[in-house]
């Protein structure tokens, strides 16, 4: 057993421990704090799996933005009494047995995965030069499986529509509730003023290097989203009214541009969602740029929630 094995085992134990503590925590607030810590640890696990792209996505969306969403929801629900219907001991035991069973089956499956493992890595690499990209994960996302990724962007837009449609009728077209306190701390305002511009630069850089290095549209967009959320928490700007035209345009720009390029594929490259040879990389970056924009707009809107007041109030 080497040093790395010991560290990996320790990391695994901590991840499981933090996860267990998260679900055991009585207060929702502590549970969410535990969840964010868990997400940070998970990012390290992903790096150990040689998946820095996933590590970034997990840290930004899986832990950061989801954490903010949950903590905001828990503060809003705190006034209400907790449901007082703890499940009986029989149900607990049954649930525990079921969980142990599922875990056991999965762990066995992990041990008996086919050997040698199936892999598309050589296949993905063979065509990498044709896309002009250096990061195989980005190539899979935007080129090989571009249709999936486009539909996934549509799912994001649908989620925003779903969240908005939960609002009461009279607030339609209005503004979501503010994210921060009425009188934010001066230090918070300072941080938002300094951090947001730096964060925007880093987010854009992350999208740009995503062509060749770990990074990409999702990660860059998520960082832009986080920066917008910080600025809204410091009350330097308010969540926009959902009726505004530029907002809706930014929301759909990602999937729309993607779809347009895809539909233009038969004329440019001879196939639906095909990229012309030699011009693939600029086109991919063009599509990605709009994806960054629409992710950077979508995620904060999902966190801000449905409109709860009329516009301009």
């Amino acid at each position, binding site marked *: 057993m080497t040093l790395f*094995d010991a560290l*990996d085992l320790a990391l695994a134990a901590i991840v*499981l421990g933090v*996860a267990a503590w*998260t*679900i055991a925590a009585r207060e*929702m607030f502590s549970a969410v704090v535990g*969840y964010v810590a868990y997400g940070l640890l*998970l990012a390290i*696990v992903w790096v*150990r*799996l*040689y*998946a820095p*792209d*996933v590590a970034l996505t*997990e840290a930004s*969306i*899986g832990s950061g*933005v989801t954490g903010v969403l949950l903590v905001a*929801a*828990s503060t809003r*629900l705190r006034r209400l*009494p*907790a*449901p007082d*219907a*703890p*499940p009986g001991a029989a*149900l607990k035991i049954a*649930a525990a047995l079921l*969980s*142990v069973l*599922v*875990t*056991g089956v*999965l762990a066995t*499956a*992990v041990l008996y*995965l086919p050997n*040698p*493992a199936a892999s*598309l*890595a050589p296949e993905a690499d063979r065509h990498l030069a044709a896309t002009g990209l250096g990061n*195989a*994960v980005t190539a*899979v*996302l935007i080129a090989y*499986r571009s249709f*999936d*990724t486009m539909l996934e962007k549509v*799912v*994001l837009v649908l*989620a925003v529509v779903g*969240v908005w449609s939960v609002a009461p009728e009279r607030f339609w077209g209005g503004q979501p509730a503010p994210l921060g306190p009425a009188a934010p701390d001066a230090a918070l305002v300072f941080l938002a003023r300094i951090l947001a511009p730096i964060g925007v630069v880093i987010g854009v850089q992350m999208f740009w290097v995503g062509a060749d290095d770990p990074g*990409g549209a999702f990660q860059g967009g998520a960082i832009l989203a986080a920066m917008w959320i910080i600025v809204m928490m410091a009350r330097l700007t308010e969540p926009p009214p959902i009726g505004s035209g530029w907002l809706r345009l930014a929301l759909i720009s990602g999937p729309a541009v993607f779809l347009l390029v895809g539909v233009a594929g038969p004329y440019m490259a001879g196939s639906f969602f095909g990229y012309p040879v030699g011009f693939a990389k600029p086109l991919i970056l063009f599509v990605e740029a709009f994806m960054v924009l629409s*992710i950077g707009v979508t995620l904060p809107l*999902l966190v801000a*929630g*449905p409109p709860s007041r009329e516009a301009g109030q």
Partner: protein
Amino acid sequence: MSASTIAGFVGSGLVGLGLYALIVNPEPLKKLLAFNLIGSGVFLVFGLVARRGAVGAFLFDPVPQAMVITGIVVAFAASALAVALMLRLADESGCIALDPEGGTRLDDGAEDT
């Protein structure tokens, strides 16, 4: 035992933990958290598959990794929708229980019409 196998076991353990919490915990927000735990467990097993796809000079198989990235984003979208529904339900009923019979209500439960 390699780092990736350990991650696979952690993934299966997380699915189990999340499943238990999902069934046992009555609060919807905690159910959502548990659901996210299950999700990340599944993603980790995917991560193991990606790492096992390392052949020759390649350190990982990019296809499962790309799927995990889209998966994380979709999971977030679903969570956001769930939170919105939960908050609206709480506004309407003054109660955060999913079961309409169970749970205590606030007396001044905000009637929102």
